């Protein structure tokens, strides 16, 4: 039992809130919420839900933007990796993608807003000299009714993630040898990569792909910033009810959360069905020996670098607005650059920044401790440490957040826990721990087993082996994983809003609030501050080991 304790703890920290949240969603969806006098069971919440004008459209929009963003992101990554295999382009794309991965969804979405809005930077750059426009056109390039801007915002954020996951997975596949064999059989390189590497690779990145799908279907913050408004997608619509003064709306909101869960599961089911349908086609194509299409693949491969540059431009737009003086359309640059917005917002930034940091550090610290304990137990005790439990912890990443966070809010409230740092940290852990576990288990498994064995032979206790041998060797991945944890925590919008009861202000909740309108310079300041924390964390994770272990260059896990 004690051997399994770390795994049980890690699993419980994720599973208990999710289970409580799902239950807290399920009961009110059928009219049972005694706290507001609803004794159910009843189908009224569903009747109210389906009476909502625009619900069919909201549901379809969620499904379409979620599936669309996933297909496009995966397609862009596959095309690029196929064409760029073995070139320096891969390393360049990796270097560009890393900071974008670290940037929270909200900040990046705000940057995209600053770029592509009718009055955005892209149009300013070509106006009026090329377009003849001295006022922005009346065209909905953001918040459009079709969700295209939302789709772009999701693709810009998820493509770098899938790219980095793909590049990491490629390390475990003899891709270069496979491509060499296939090209020797007469296949052009990009075609060869798609035929022989992609099928192996896809198996490895399936979980991240499905996580992207579930996230995209249920996104709230990106949808609030870039998505359609009348009606919005499903998740923001539910949030509107869940934060309404009319508490009885919690019931249809819960029913809607279940509907959202159904939409996400439908999307995942459709995806898995499509896998089955595509696999034999792919096999037939691979076996056919047809080598055409390389030109089209190479053309398609240019999309990903273009997208990465767009994301970087979005970050530049954030910084520009944060230091802009008066800046009217169609000026491509502000009248003057000033620090006024930063100084005037310094006081307003202080509390949210402190809240963001404390939640991120606590959640990441706890997640690291739990993950290291569980992985250490697995290394020492093998099957007795219940490693299969650890494999289950990422499953909540396949659920849309609102499906269990809405119910969790009610549960936390009943326990008198919501509205403070502890509740926020607990709920952040649900998202931080799976990523920390996933990112740390590789380096832990790759640890040279001879090192602890030698130490043990020299008489060191298991604790000493852990402290004196394993931790120093693992310092580099531990720091990198800590940065991942911080980035995941900082990015949480819905989790912070609901667990914090709306009064735990972080840079993320403030930035999304400000994105509703208002002074773009202030919005720029909050978005830059929000993005700065994870970027600094990743920077520190890169620099610290080099500083700490200057004299031990060979020390690597």
């Amino acid at each position, binding site marked *: 039992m004690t051997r399994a304790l770390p795994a049980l703890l890690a699993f419980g920290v994720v599973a208990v809130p999710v289970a409580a949240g799902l239950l807290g969603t399920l009961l009110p969806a059928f009219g049972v919420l005694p706290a507001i006098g609803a004794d159910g069971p009843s189908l009224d919440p569903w009747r109210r839900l389906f009476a909502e004008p625009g619900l069919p459209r909201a549901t379809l929009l969620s499904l379409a933007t979620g599936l669309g963003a996933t297909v496009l992101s995966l397609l862009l990554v596959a095309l690029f990796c196929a064409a760029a295999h073995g070139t320096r382009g891969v390393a360049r794309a990796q270097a560009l993608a890393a900071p974008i991965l670290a940037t929270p969804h909200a900040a990046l979405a705000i940057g995209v807003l600053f770029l592509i809005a009718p009055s955005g930077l892209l149009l300013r750059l070509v106006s009026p000299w090329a377009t003849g426009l001295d006022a922005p056109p009346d065209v909905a390039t953001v918040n459009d009714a079709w969700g295209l801007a939302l789709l772009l915002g999701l693709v810009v954020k998820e493509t770098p993630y899938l790219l980095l996951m793909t590049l990491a997975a490629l390390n475990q596949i003899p891709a270069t040898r496979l491509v060499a064999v296939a090209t020797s059989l007469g296949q052009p390189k990009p075609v060869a990569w798609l035929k022989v590497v992609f099928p192996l690779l896809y198996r490895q990145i399936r979980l991240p792909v499905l996580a992207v799908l579930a996230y995209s279907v249920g996104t709230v913050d990106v949808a609030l910033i870039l998505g359609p408004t009348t009606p919005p997608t499903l998740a923001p619509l539910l949030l509107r009810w869940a934060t309404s*003064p009319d508490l009885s709306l919690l019931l249809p909101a819960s029913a809607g959360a279940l509907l959202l869960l159904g939409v996400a599961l439908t999307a995942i089911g459709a995806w898995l069905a499509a896998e089955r349908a595509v696999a034999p086609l792919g096999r037939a194509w691979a076996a056919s020996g047809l080598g055409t299409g390389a030109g089209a693949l190479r053309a398609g491969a240019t999309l990903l670098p273009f997208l990465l540059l767009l994301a970087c431009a979005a970050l530049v737009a954030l910084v520009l607005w944060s230091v802009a003086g008066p800046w009217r359309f169609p000026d491509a640059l502000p009248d003057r650059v000033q620090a006024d917005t930063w100084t005037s917002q310094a006081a307003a930034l202080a509390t949210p920044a402190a809240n963001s940091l404390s939640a991120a550090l606590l959640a990441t610290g706890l997640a690291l401790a739990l993950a290291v304990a569980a992985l250490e137990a697995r290394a020492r005790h093998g099957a007795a440490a219940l490693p299969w439990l650890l494999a289950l912890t990422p499953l909540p990443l396949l659920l849309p957040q609102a499906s269990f966070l809405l119910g969790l809010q009610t549960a936390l409230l009943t326990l008198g826990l919501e509205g403070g740092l502890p509740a926020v940290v607990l709920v952040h852990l649900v998202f931080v721990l799976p990523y920390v576990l996933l990112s740390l288990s590789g380096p832990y498994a790759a640890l040279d087993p001879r090192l602890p064995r030698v130490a043990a032979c020299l008489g060191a206790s298991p604790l000493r082996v852990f402290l004196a041998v394993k931790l120093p060797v693992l310092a580099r991945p531990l720091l990198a994983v800590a940065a991942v944890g911080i980035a995941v925590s900082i990015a949480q919008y819905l989790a912070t809003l609901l667990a914090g009861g709306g009064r735990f202000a972080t840079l993320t909740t403030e930035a999304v*609030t400000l994105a509703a309108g208002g002074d773009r310079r202030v919005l720029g300041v909050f978005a830059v501050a929000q993005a700065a924390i994870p970027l600094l964390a990743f920077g520190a994770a890169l620099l610290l080991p080099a500083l700490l272990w200057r004299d031990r260059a060979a020390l690597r896990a």
Partner: protein
Amino acid sequence: MTALPRRALAALALAPLAARAQDLPWSETLRRARGQTVAWHAWAGDERTNAFIAWVAEQAAARFGITLRHVRLRDTAEAVQRVLAEISAGRRAGGAVDLVWINGPNFLSLKQAGLLRRFAERLPNFALVDTVGKPATVTDFTIPVEGYAAPWRMARLVFIADGRRVPQPPRDMAALLAWSQRNRGRFTHPGVRNFLGATFLKQALYELAPDRTVLSRPAGAAFDATVAPLWAWYDALRPNLWRQGRAFPETGPAMRNLLNDGELDIMLSFNPAEATVSVAAGLLPATVRTFVPAIGSIGNASFVAIPVNASAPDAAEVVADLLLSPEAQARAEDPRHLGAPTVLDLARLAPADRARFAAWPRGPEALPPDALGPALPEPHPSWMTRLTEAWERRVAA
């Protein structure tokens, strides 16, 4: 309307407690307040207001030893929901909301549920409020306030146009429709879930309703007949709005960005000094001009209220009183800071305090107070609620 949580009614049992606090001398309230932290839940969509709240926080700390924290809301309903949820979960004290910027349906919903403290009349500075000349300070959307909230700023619906593009602004709803048909896509209003969007519809309703006296009573069976001309007008207007009336800016400040970018020619504001304030802040071009409809425009007062389960009710009262102090009111009215008209009766102030309200340097952008025309009272809150629902059905369908 809001469903009354059954257990919320139990909170009425707290009423005697609140009454006892009324009997305390003010000096005792000040003593208790020292060292407390007040969470002021306030809509945070406007930077000028946020800056003003930050200034109030400095004053509260320096003068009364109170830590004032601005909890920034996207929608005031979030705070109302918080209080209702806490009471439903049995939390009768130690609540998250100490002070909330509130009016209209949100105020009615908390007042009806018996979830507000009665405190305004005992604030020393409340005696300075112009309850006669500015009846909106004691009647919010036709609902008697009865001390369950304290006013802190006056608001008036105004229109702001780019004077270069709109030399002759349309001063009634028929003219606005004709102007929009000639200038397609150059006007809109915030989405009606936003209070300013709802106010625009109410303003139009004042002009278009066959009988406007019904607006002061709850919207009952008369609703459909009263709003029919409004929808006929709106259906003609909507295709001519920005984005063909298929999308709407979320807030007033979002409209301001659009006017500044040149996407719109006319915007709405609840602050008669908005133009002056925003030109000075570089948020609007200097060519903007303010105008109001010929029949007058909707005016109301902004209030702060204290929920029965507030954690720091004493300090919240002190902050509410600070908001009513001549110094804070003068700062709020100063167009260099906020530009929100005062709720005080200047005749009741000491000469030194009255001097704080000296004629502000008002640019040509804004209207002087005497040119604002009559203030139309807010309709009963149920009109806002039902208009919002009906609008959503028309637009989202």
